[in-house]
């Protein structure tokens, strides 16, 4: 058996591999975002975000990223996009809103970029 792949994740530009390292970093943030599957949790967060973040034990970096609704900062703080999508859902942001935010485009520009991928 030749163990070849597992310990050198090749760096892909603009892409964070959500591996064990990121998982260890982001657990509290992701757990909070997972709770947003429930409508009551979403309402509770909106009513008092600081108390809700404290309850899940987020660190300062994670809290600030949430306050700023800054997706790249949330990812850097260990956030996993599958759970962050539920955070975005609270603010009715869809995947094109957060795509535009992360790439520094307007939503229209981002949609045009997607359309062009079909050419």
């Amino acid at each position, binding site marked *: 058996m030749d163990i070849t792949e597992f310990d050198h994740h090749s760096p892909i530009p603009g892409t964070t591999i959500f591996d064990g390292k990121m998982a260890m970093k982001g657990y509290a943030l992701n757990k909070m975002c997972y709770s947003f599957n429930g409508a009551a949790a979403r309402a509770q967060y909106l009513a008092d975000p600081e108390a809700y973040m404290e309850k899940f034990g987020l660190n300062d970096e994670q809290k600030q990223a949430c306050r700023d609704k800054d997706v790249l900062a949330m990812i850097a703080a260990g956030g996993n996009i599958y759970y962050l999508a539920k955070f975005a*859902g609270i603010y009715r942001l869809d995947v094109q809103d957060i795509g535009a935010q992360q790439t520094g485009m307007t939503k229209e520009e981002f949609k045009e970029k*997607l359309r062009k991928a079909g050419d």
Partner: protein
Amino acid sequence: MAKILGGLTTSHIPAVGNAIHNGLFDDPYWKPFFDGYPPIRAWLDEHKPDLAINIYNDHGLGFFLDRMPTFAIGAAHEYRNEDEGWGIPQLPPFPGAPEVSWHIIESMVEQEFDITSCQELPVDHGFVVPMQLFWPGAPNNPDMPRTIPISANTVQHPIPTLKRALDFGKALRRAIQSYPEDLKVVVLGTGGLSHQLDGERAGFINKEFDQYCMEKIVDDPEALTKISRMELVEKAGAQGTEFLMWMMMRGALGDKVVRRHSNYHIPISNTGAGTMLLECVE
């Protein structure tokens, strides 16, 4: 004896659920996507399968990082579609086939696949959107088959290799074929194709790679097992790893298949959307 009729593939994007809810079938943005489905529905209408094994990937509703399985198989009497955080209308429960689930789980563990068995499992858009596309009105379509959800991990690396995914499908074929009762089965592979939601590379779509995958999966899926997982992230995008579901589906169809239908459209939401019907030869 149970018989596998064929495999169906589709993307399973949440926005599709909304478009179905709002009836946007002839909307110019949506039409080229929805037009990929009627030929498959006609085939289903002709063959009327008894069981749909839906291979999808959960997106953080059914599983969390506290207990993240590589391969999970549902073994419940029904599967509830629950709120996944953004208010898509929830559908009534989908009827399961637990006695078939247990036959499959017994066989898969015997064949050295380390299954997580799920006697209760809420299902998200990854599971329900394909059902709605193939059986309009699902689960309330009169022809709606009973179902077994199978989910593979694409949330947390390490994800399974493409080879392990294909081998899973091959073992699943043996499991199904050894079921003693008459049963017509279709296997769904859902998710993909290329897309990336996160990072500065968000919005990445790779038409050339998608088309390569759709070509190779018909007659030479083994070639695709040469792709490493990091290469898959690179070429299909971070969420394009959902192509693993297509590999699992393909393994269950046997060596030879006939491609009865194929459709590819860019973009739906952030994704290259692929739809196929592969019919089993034996």
